[in-house]
């Protein structure tokens, strides 16, 4: 037992001391934070107000109609040909030409600009014009503007899960799907990543010929187990670092956001109009995240994730170790790694369907069979899974792991001493029945 600890310690420390481990540990959280921090940062940067000239030949617009928080308009009255040559020199981004018959030919508006106009700016301009034109048209049709305001409704639904006991929880279908997708992806990547790390570690020991010295001190299964557990702990450490660093970086990013002018402006708008404030809150990504957190059984999902990572990893890495033991180089290993990678890839593909319909028959079986259950059960878990299914799936996974590690240990102990021989799958199957 003591000696397994020594092996674990060596495997763990040599990997933790590598630069690549720390690069991956830092890069992950930075990328995750950047995905939502960069757009916010960009929003805080782009607060320069654009100036637009409007040549209104229809005569419908007054300065009071032309209000927008990002654009400053100026009504001008000069021939188009003159304005076209002068607007950019005078510091205007664009010139908008409204035709005389704007009410009947609203699609004849022309916007001149020196550079290509950004899409948001174009829609800001169009929004302002549209609002005025619509108001005039409605007035002409005899519809009071209050009636119009009332018809501007937003349909929103709240999804609620009802448990057998009748407890109601506000749920989030979108959120559950995102959570399921993220966890399925994470499991898929880590099973492949750490599984192949175990395999390369075994190949390294075999090809550098240190293996014979080691197994004259400890039993092959102790070495295999120590290696698998050591690398697994590296994986858990990496998860932990990712979680801590992502939370830390997000905190820093949101502090920065809170202090930014965008946030202050948003708060101002919210104060003025509570109706708008509610809509904004409901639509913001933070609200969605909060909703997911409220509606998911976090300890169950986190516990489930750790369980399925651990046993999924143990199952697959023992198979990877067996392959590593049978070959002498990474290149030679490729033909066999496919056999082990196939079920992982298959599980990942099945997970796409499981995500669409977590209660289908396929999803059920995919989350029961030990080879596909880690990824598929994790995808189902955020949607809610009956306890007996979860318990059966977990039990089957543990049984599957024990079976695979028994097979792997038997291949491993023969394989690590086998040199200069082309190994086939049939040959490996024979090793299962070798004595001592």
């Amino acid at each position, binding site marked *: 037992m003591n000696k397994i600890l020594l092996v674990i310690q*060596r495997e763990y420390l040599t990997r933790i001391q590598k630069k690549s481990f720390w690069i991956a540990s830092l890069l992950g959280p930075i990328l995750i934070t950047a995905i939502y921090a960069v757009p916010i940062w960009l929003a805080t940067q782009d607060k320069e107000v654009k100036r637009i000239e409007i040549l209104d030949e229809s005569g419908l617009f007054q300065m009071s109609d032309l209000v927008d928080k990002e654009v400053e308009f100026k009504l001008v009255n000069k021939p188009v040909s003159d304005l076209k040559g002068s607007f950019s020199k005078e510091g205007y981004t664009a010139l908008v030409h409204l035709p005389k018959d704007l009410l009947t030919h609203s699609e004849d508006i022309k916007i001149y600009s020196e550079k290509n106009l950004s899409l948001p700016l174009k829609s800001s301009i169009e929004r302002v014009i549209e609002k005025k034109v619509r108001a005039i048209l409605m007035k002409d049709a005899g519809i009071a503007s209050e009636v119009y305001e009332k018809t501007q409704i937003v349909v929103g639904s709240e999804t609620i899960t009802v448990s057998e006991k009748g407890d109601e929880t506000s749920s989030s279908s979108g959120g559950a799907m995102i959570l399921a997708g993220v966890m399925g992806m994470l499991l898929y990547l880590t099973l492949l990543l750490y599984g192949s790390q175990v395999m390369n570690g075994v190949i390294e020991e075999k090809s550098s010929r240190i293996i014979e*010295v080691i197994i*004259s001190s400890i039993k092959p299964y102790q070495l295999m187990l120590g290696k698998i557990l050591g690398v697994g702990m590296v994986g858990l450490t990496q998860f932990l670092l990712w979680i801590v660093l992502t939370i830390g970086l997000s905190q820093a990013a949101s502090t920065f956001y809170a202090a930014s002018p965008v946030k202050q402006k948003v708060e101002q708008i919210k104060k003025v109009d509570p109706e708008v404030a509610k809509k904004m809150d409901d639509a913001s990504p933070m609200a969605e995240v909060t909703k997911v957190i409220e509606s998911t059984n976090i300890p169950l999902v986190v516990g489930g994730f750790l369980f399925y990572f651990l046993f999924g990893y143990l199952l697959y890495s023992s198979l990877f170790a067996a392959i590593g033991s049978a070959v002498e180089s990474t290149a030679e290993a490729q033909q066999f790694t496919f056999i082990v990678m196939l079920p992982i890839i298959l599980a990942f593909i099945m997970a796409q369907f499981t995500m669409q319909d977590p209660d289908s028959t396929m999803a059920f079986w995919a989350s029961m069979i030990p080879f596909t259950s880690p990824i598929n059960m994790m995808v189902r878990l955020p949607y809610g899974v009956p306890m007996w299914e979860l318990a059966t799936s977990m039990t089957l996974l543990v049984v599957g792991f024990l079976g695979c590690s028994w097979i792997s240990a038997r291949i491993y102990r023969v394989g690590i001493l086998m040199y200069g021989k082309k190994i086939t799958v049939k040959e490996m199957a024979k090793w299962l029945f070798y004595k001592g």
Partner: protein
Amino acid sequence: MILSIQNVVKRYADHTALAGVSLEIPKGQIFGLLGPNGAGKTSLIRIINQITAPDEGQVLFDGELLQPKHVEQIGYLPEERGLYKKMKVGDQLMYLAQLKGLTKVEALTRLKDWFIRLDIKDWWNKPVDDLSKGMQQKTQFIATVVHEPKLLILDEPFSGFDPINANMLKDEILGLKERGTTILFSTHRMESVEELCDSIALINHSQVVLTGEKDEVRNRFKKHAYEVRYSGDLGESKAYEIISKAPENNSAIIKLAQPDQTNQAIASLIKQVDLFEFKEVIPSFNDIFIQVVGETK
């Protein structure tokens, strides 16, 4: 006896590596395990190291049935040997020493002693990759003996060593023997057998075909031949027969008609020639090896 190997049989799928091997290895000796490639030496060594288990028979270590705890009293330097390339020399030796049951403190103290003795203090923090082959061999040797094993198993220890390192290794082996370590020494190189071994066993075709103390084995293979140097004309005699003659150095090899009747032969010789030298031809282990392996084909 430090090791008592009794009727050990080891079969693989397509061949029998050991077919009922029995050997007694006395304490404190340097014991040579000889044999051509594929004879079963490595299979036997792996069984002693408990890397594999015998199909039949048993091995006693110091009178006890071989058990996992015994690995801590055995040091093994395999023929194909290596180290973790990226690991630092010091870390690596600490790891290997602790795997052999030393505590961290014991391992550190002993390794420091070794590093001072071999004058390699500045290697401690170097990755193995940066070491020359000779330096790696020294490192491997330290790893093999740091836990002060009762039994040291060296499989072709001199292969790849330059003469200076080979000499150092020889001195270390002799030093360990003086301190009571038994050394099981597997090799092809007969000159090191002559030089170092006290006893030998020759394995061929999965069986022990010859075993015994070095001098006793040599005596067994004596052909009662003598080398003579002389001047004059050497002719036939009833007392001996001439096996070969080298007139250019005035020497010849003769075989006595009656074993041990040296006086008769000498009497016959001095009648014919002026005798300068009369010396028994002792068979070399090289000759014995070739003869025995040839006979047991």
